[in-house]
């Protein structure tokens, strides 16, 4: 149960209906959802997935506290008395709601529950009773959403994070959609057993977190995560709250710096013998302690690169040919390279590059069509809005036999 308790320092996902937001838990913490400011202190010590009601702080407008809920008082207590057959008699003259805007605002400020507000709106609507049954339901849903006063605190997972980032702004993750992400992981054969190399120039840490999640805890897999900046983007890595042992197997290194280290430095071997004199061990420890962390991480990464990796994943803002060309040297033969791009043309260039090299087979370029469905009795159809994902190139590297 311990891991299900919300504590200071945890990253949590605040959910209000379909809206989600990542938040680090602190003492005296507030979160802004739309125009509402919510004091979320009350959730500390509670368990994930519990529901809380937003209660208006007295003397404020749209500043709320949270209180634990054991029973919902939801909108649909609104009794529908009669319904129309179709919309032939409904005219949009802007006069169907008799309450004025300020009167409605006032309802909210009087801290009425969403159910009560919707009830009032229905009572004061001239056309509600002539709407069709389906249309009435839609109206209630829409209004309920607007005045919804419940929130939940969710534990971050790769699925929730990927959906949240994409909904907030696809650019936060270089346009990577859930299906794209899922296929990067399968085509690169990411699992507990392997060492993987990722170049990621800005997915908020989502791809690195997904790979590390698939590598798992208490396994032997490693991820070398190369990034172009001083610091890697790591919101998703932090949000996942991996155990230290697992987090340490994600080695975050700067692309330029680690390659310079690989090509220009001698990388000290790790001494694995445990029975050598302790003195030597501590001597080494102090030597390593003197080194800045990034240098130590570079060396760790280089040791893995020298052994070569079991999968290479590239999610780049930049044109993929040069970076792929450089990094496939670290890929073992018989293993797969997977490259994602939101646009197709750079991957076409990469396709020709790999084709010319003759040590790659099964070079595939693909994209996905994905859509969601509304499933309701008598009203099942594809969702009205859809979006477009990116392109994925995969290829298997061969071993060139020198004979």
């Amino acid at each position, binding site marked *: 149960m311990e891991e299900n308790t919300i504590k200071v320092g945890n990253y949590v996902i605040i959910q209000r209906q379909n809206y989600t937001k990542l938040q680090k838990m602190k003492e005296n913490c507030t979160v802004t959802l739309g125009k509402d400011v919510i004091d979320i202190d009350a959730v500390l010590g509670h368990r*994930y*997935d*519990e*529901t809380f009601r937003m209660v208006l702080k007295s003397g404020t407008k749209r500043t709320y506290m949270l209180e634990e*809920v*054991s*029973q*919902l008082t*939801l*909108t*649909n207590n609104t009794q529908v008395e009669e319904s129309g057959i179709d919309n032939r008699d409904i005219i949009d003259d802007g006069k169907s709601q008799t309450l004025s805007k300020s009167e409605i605002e006032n309802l909210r400020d009087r801290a009425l529950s969403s159910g009560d507000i919707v009830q009032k709106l229905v009572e004061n609507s001239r056309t509600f009773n002539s709407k069709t049954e389906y249309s009435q339901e839609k109206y209630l849903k829409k209004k309920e959403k607007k005045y919804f006063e419940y929130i939940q605190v969710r534990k971050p*997972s790769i699925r929730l994070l*990927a959906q949240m980032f994409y909904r907030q702004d696809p650019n936060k993750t270089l346009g990577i959609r*859930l*299906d794209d*992400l*899922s*296929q990067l*992981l*399968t*085509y690169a*054969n990411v*699992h*507990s*057993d392997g060492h993987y190399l990722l170049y990621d120039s800005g997915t908020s840490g989502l791809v690195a977190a*997904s790979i590390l*999640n*698939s*590598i*798992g*805890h*208490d396994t032997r897999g490693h991820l070398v995560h190369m990034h172009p900046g001083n610091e890697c983007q790591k919101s998703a890595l932090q949000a996942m709250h991996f155990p230290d042992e697992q987090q340490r197997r994600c080695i975050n290194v700067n692309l330029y710096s680690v390659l310079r280290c690989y090509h220009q430095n001698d990388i000290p071997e790790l001494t694995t013998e445990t029975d050598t004199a302790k003195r030597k061990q501590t001597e080494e420890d102090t030597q390593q302690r003197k080194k800045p962390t990034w240098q130590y991480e570079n060396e760790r990464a280089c040791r893995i690169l020298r052994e070569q990796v*079991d999968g290479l994943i590239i999610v780049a803002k930049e044109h993929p040919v040069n970076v792929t060309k450089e990094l496939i040297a670290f890929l073992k*033969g*018989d*293993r*797969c390279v997977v490259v994602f791009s939101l646009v*197709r043309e750079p991957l*076409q260039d990469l396709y*020709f590059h790999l084709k010319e090299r003759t040590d790659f087979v*099964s070079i*595939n*370029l*693909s*994209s*996905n*069509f*994905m*859509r*969601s*469905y509304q*499933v*309701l*009795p008598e009203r*099942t159809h594809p969702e009205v809005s859809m979006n477009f994902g990116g392109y994925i190139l995969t290829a*298997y*590297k*061969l*071993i060139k*036999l020198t004979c």
Partner: protein
Amino acid sequence: MSFRSFKSTIDEGDTVILYLTIHQIYSVKAEVKTLSKKGVLIDNVFQTQYGALKCGDLIGQKYGTKIQLSKGWGYVLQPTPELWTLTLPHRTQIIYTPDISMIILQLELAPGSIVIESGTGSGSLSHAFIRSVKPHGHLHTFDFHEQRVQTVEEEFKDHGLIEWVTVKKRDVCSEGFGSELEHRADAVFLDLPHPWLAVPHSKLALKETGGRICSFSPCIEQVQKTCLILLKLGFHEIQTIEIIQTQYSIQTRSIGVLNLDFVKVKKCEDSQEKQEKEILRTVTAVPPTTQPGHTGFLTFATLPPIWARTLAQENNDLCTDCV
């Protein structure tokens, strides 16, 4: 044993992927002899368009290398769940990698997860499940077809995966998943003709801390029934999606350019020379002329942890009331 972990050399008995072209990929067994259909021990020879392959010769070769065939060559690769999906013997309709990928991500599987699958079918998805949950997780897979259960179990043994999977013959719609799996699973996957009948059993099998469920169905009527029961049983985040992957052929096309300027001037009697045709070269990605346009609908849902179930149920009841 070639599915167990990464390896570099082909051992006797390994399943090996034989790659010829993008549309010609096969799996063979690295064995000198094999049983014929009549049960007689014969030489294990695989016939390809580029000549015969004596499968025994593969033993000792490196994965990822070129191999000679009598009239050409091919490449040998170590099987991955993706390559296996492309080459496995079909005993049923199978689920392909785009759907498999989404199922694994959405079921939130990771090493250590306990996952239940029904039916097992040809084991395409099962191989990917095992990869996701090993080394400390487990797959419990059920099928109501006796022979399929036996064959797939043999395959798991042969592939070195049996320690992470339990295969049972059972009609889960009527019998459930068994008392030993009550509140044990992190995720349940259903690919059944009547998935809605297995949803109550799935709820019972999911952990008290909650879990995810997925149902794969080709028909929308199955989806509708499944969604209704999910709602009734207090699942939330019910979502139905479909995914279709398109694979492109990258080509450089030469396209002739029409130049119509000459029609605007009088024909010159003395200039006999013909204008050379202008050709533009353009790189393009061509989708296939036909491709699968539908595989199945994927319905996902979350069972909340036990302490949040009454509220989720209440919320759903309000939804179903107006339905």
